[in-house]
């Protein structure tokens, strides 16, 4: 099956209401081109999963695509301030914030990747987060009787990751920090890879550094140069500060649609 396709084709396979994992961390190597395509296609009720998100989550909330966000932290880092669209959506009751510790997102994804229903987690039991969220529970170690908190598995229907290099079959490599992208690929039912560069079929065969994601986990590959912009992609580009600031000024979903129409960042 041909996996190499356009961004529009890849994203059209994502249906309303799906659980979608997003790679990267804050403005670092987030799959922004795919996020903007989700918005263009008017997806609804997406259940977003991320350890630490910023513009990806903020934009999907502004556009009305998100039903819930499972994450440990949603904010730009110091320079660009708070994720105001996410905040507002949660405060207005439009989006459900399922706050995790970043590690409980990781543990939930690990459970999915191990094929088990939940994962015990240390520490969490003293947090009010344990009591107010139904995806956390208490468990007892069957061997020692120790009481622990546990988190329910999260198995995304699809995860979207942006890589520096991929081939047409879906083998993909992250140069530099990998964040939780490799785990996301194992935990999810399928993976969409967007990549700065598409290499020939025997590229990874000739490399000492192999792909991080093997082709059989991937259902679509998109050539998306600047696919993490206006965020950064290590080894390729820094954030486009002007575009980030322009985005932060957009008042509503209509303005966002116009801004995307103008193709500020060239996708």
């Amino acid at each position, binding site marked *: 099956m041909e996996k190499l396709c356009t961004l529009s084709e890849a994203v059209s396979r994502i249906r309303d209401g799906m659980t979608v994992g997003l790679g990267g961390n804050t403005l670092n190597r987030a799959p922004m081109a795919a996020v903007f395509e989700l918005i263009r296609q008017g997806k609804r009720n997406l259940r977003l999963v991320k350890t630490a998100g910023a513009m990806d989550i903020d934009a999907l909330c502004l556009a009305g695509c998100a039903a819930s966000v499972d994450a440990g932290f949603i904010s730009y880092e110091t320079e660009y301030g708070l994720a105001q669209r996410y905040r507002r959506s949660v*405060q207005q009751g439009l989006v459900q*914030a399922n706050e995790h510790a970043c590690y409980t997102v990781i543990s939930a994804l690990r459970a999915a990747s191990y094929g088990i229903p939940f994962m015990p987690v240390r520490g969490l039991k003293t947090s009010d987060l344990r009591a107010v969220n139904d995806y956390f529970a208490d468990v007892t170690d069957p061997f020692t009787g120790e009481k622990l908190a546990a988190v329910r598995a999260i198995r995304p229907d699809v995860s979207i990751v942006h890589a520096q290099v991929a081939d047409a079959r879906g083998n993909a490599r992250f140069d530099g920090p990998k964040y939780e992208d490799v785990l996301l690929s194992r935990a999810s039912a399928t993976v969409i890879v967007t990549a700065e560069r598409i290499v020939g079929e025997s590229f990874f065969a000739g490399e000492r550094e192999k792909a991080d994601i093997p082709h059989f986990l991937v259902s679509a590959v998109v050539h998306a140069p600047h696919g993490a912009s206006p965020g950064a992609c290590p080894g390729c580009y820094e954030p486009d500060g002007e575009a980030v600031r322009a985005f932060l000024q957009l008042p509503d979903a209509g303005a966002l649609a116009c801004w995307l129409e103008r193709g500020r960042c060239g996708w």
Partner: protein
Amino acid sequence: MVRTCDIMAVALARLIRNGDTVFHGVSSHLPMVAVLLAKATHAPDAVYLNIPGGTDPERPVLQRFTSAGTGLWDSACAGFPLMEVFDLSMRGGLDVAFLSGVQFDSRGNVNASVIGDYRRPKVRLPGGAGSAVLIPTAKRAVIWRTKHDRRTFTDKVDFVTAKGNVSDIVTPLCCFTMYEGELILKSIHPGVTIDKVAENTAFPLRYFDIVETPPPNAEEEAALRRIDPLDLRNLEFL
């Protein structure tokens, strides 16, 4: 006059002991500079762990937009990504975790989640990131907060995102340390009065004696200029 960001950076750095394993996360430029300062001065064998997973970066390129970027990875000696830093803390191997929040009380409870109802909050905060698992499991959770007022240092936090092993809190006015389960005043920064700290803290101040936070010495000043030429330690005060 010592700048607040400089006194906070040195106060945070001095809490790191030589050989400690030390972690900070996102939005953490002050701790990032503090860890590098400690390694450049009194704690060369501290082990620097971070989100991108760059263990002990030799020539870190500090990035303005992030404290979790490739600048901490590129000159690192080994890869040890975030999930493994958490695992390390879970098995008792993380000495120091730098974390923050929006409200703190005298028992060291931290709120980084919500003001008001959890499901329909008056204010949705960014979230505690790793706090709910790191504050109880790291040997010492060190808090920094660049705001010190009565809403921040409150009688009772609205929501307990995390509690546990908070050992110290560094603010623009002072340093608190945990003593028998309660925060006590450890030192007051140069130029700050005890009355000013008391006026801006909702819980009663407890202390044994009032000492001044030692300002940066010549070695620390030189190291700060070298480590952080872009003055990112001041980012939260701009």
